[in-house]
């Protein structure tokens, strides 16, 4: 189930809440706890688990903020310097010497890799009028999704707003879609507005879109994802996206950023199919 369950909107929503709450934990501790939560969900949820079963597993785990509070309580009984001990301090001193001996280049690369990824916030919606006029928004326990009828053979897509809250320019150069959209859609295109929508009244259609696009510190861009839809979907099936991986250049390093949307964009059965 791994990929499927982790991509499930309930699980993704829970992990988003966990990530937000876990910002108070040291990064390695937060990463470890997240890995344990993910493993728990992967073990507990079967390959064909229903929404109710997945929700039950997440309820069993308890609210993400309480889980993090438990981790804070478990690790916060004594101030960390007294837990380190003299041997620990010796090791830390040695490590500091090693770190000091590293070259400026190495440090610079690391600092670029640790820059916070692009952040999803602000405006979002379906791109084409036939879609945003017929969208249906649903909200389950932990996630929101909008669904529109699939229009076979026609281009469909959506946009979200992404912010660069870091002190370095981030340049989006590609994505993991490799031409494919939901439900086997083809000719997928990922483009970004070439200017900050906040300076143009937030009207998405008034902007020019391209790739690659650089986002200077403190600015935002619309990220537009479109594809040519294929096939039809039965009344019981939906296909869509609630995240995308972008290839982003930061300084002179290139990395992959996982962008989790605040809502899922899904295609479903509709009036365009028998």
């Amino acid at each position, binding site marked *: 189930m791994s990929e499927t369950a982790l991509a499930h909107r309930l699980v993704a929503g829970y992990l988003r809440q966990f990530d937000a709450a876990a910002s108070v934990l040291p990064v390695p*501790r937060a990463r*470890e*706890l997240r*890995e*344990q*939560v993910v*493993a*728990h969900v*992967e*073990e*507990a949820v079967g390959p064909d688990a229903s929404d109710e079963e997945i929700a039950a597993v997440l309820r*069993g*785990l*308890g609210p993400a903020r*309480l*889980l993090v509070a*438990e*981790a804070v*309580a*478990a*690790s916060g009984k004594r101030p960390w310097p007294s837990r380190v001990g003299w041997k620990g301090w010796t090791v830390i001193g040695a490590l500091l010497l090693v770190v000091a001996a590293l070259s400026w280049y190495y440090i610079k690369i690391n600092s670029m890799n640790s820059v916070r990824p692009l952040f999803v916030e602000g405006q979002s919606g379906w791109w084409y009028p036939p879609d945003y006029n017929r969208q249906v928004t649903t909200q389950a326990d932990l996630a929101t999704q909008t669904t529109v009828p699939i229009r076979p053979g026609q281009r469909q897509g959506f946009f979200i707003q992404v912010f660069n809250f870091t002190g370095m320019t981030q340049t989006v150069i590609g994505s993991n879609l490799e031409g494919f959209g939901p439900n086997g859609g083809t000719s997928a295109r990922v483009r970004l507005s070439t200017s900050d929508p906040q300076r143009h009244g937030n009207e998405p259609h008034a902007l020019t879109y391209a790739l690659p696009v650089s986002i200077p510190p403190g600015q935002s861009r619309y990220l537009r994802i479109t594809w040519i839809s294929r096939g039809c979907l039965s009344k019981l099936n939906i296909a869509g996206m609630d995240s995308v991986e972008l290839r982003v250049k930061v300084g002179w390093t290139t990395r992959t950023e996982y962008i989790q949307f605040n809502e899922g964009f899904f295609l479903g059965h509709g009036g365009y199919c028998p």
Partner: protein
Amino acid sequence: MLDMGEAELTELRRGVLGPCVLALLESRPRFGLELVRDLAGAGGLLTSDGTVYPLLNRLRDAGLVTSQWQAREGERARRYYSITQAGRQSLAAFRSEWAQFAATVSQVLGNGAAESMGAVAKGRPR
């Protein structure tokens, strides 16, 4: 009557959950969900499944358990937790303390109940 609140119960559970985890690991290594299920199966020990993981990390930090990824044949790779020698010693010490502690608490609770019943009996009109 004094009701024991959820907060007090949570504190009680928190106090004994660590030794219970060590006791489960004493017989054999277990992975996270397995521990959660065994503890949940015992009844009344877990406020939520997720609390086990911060606890395991704390026990590991204290050197009482270790963890290791293992991929057994036909199974997914899992992080298995094992008890350390220090963990066994800690568990043995707790068992010894717990026996004394539980006996004392039982005695006090029993005496308290007996005294209360005595008081009621004395106050009953004859």
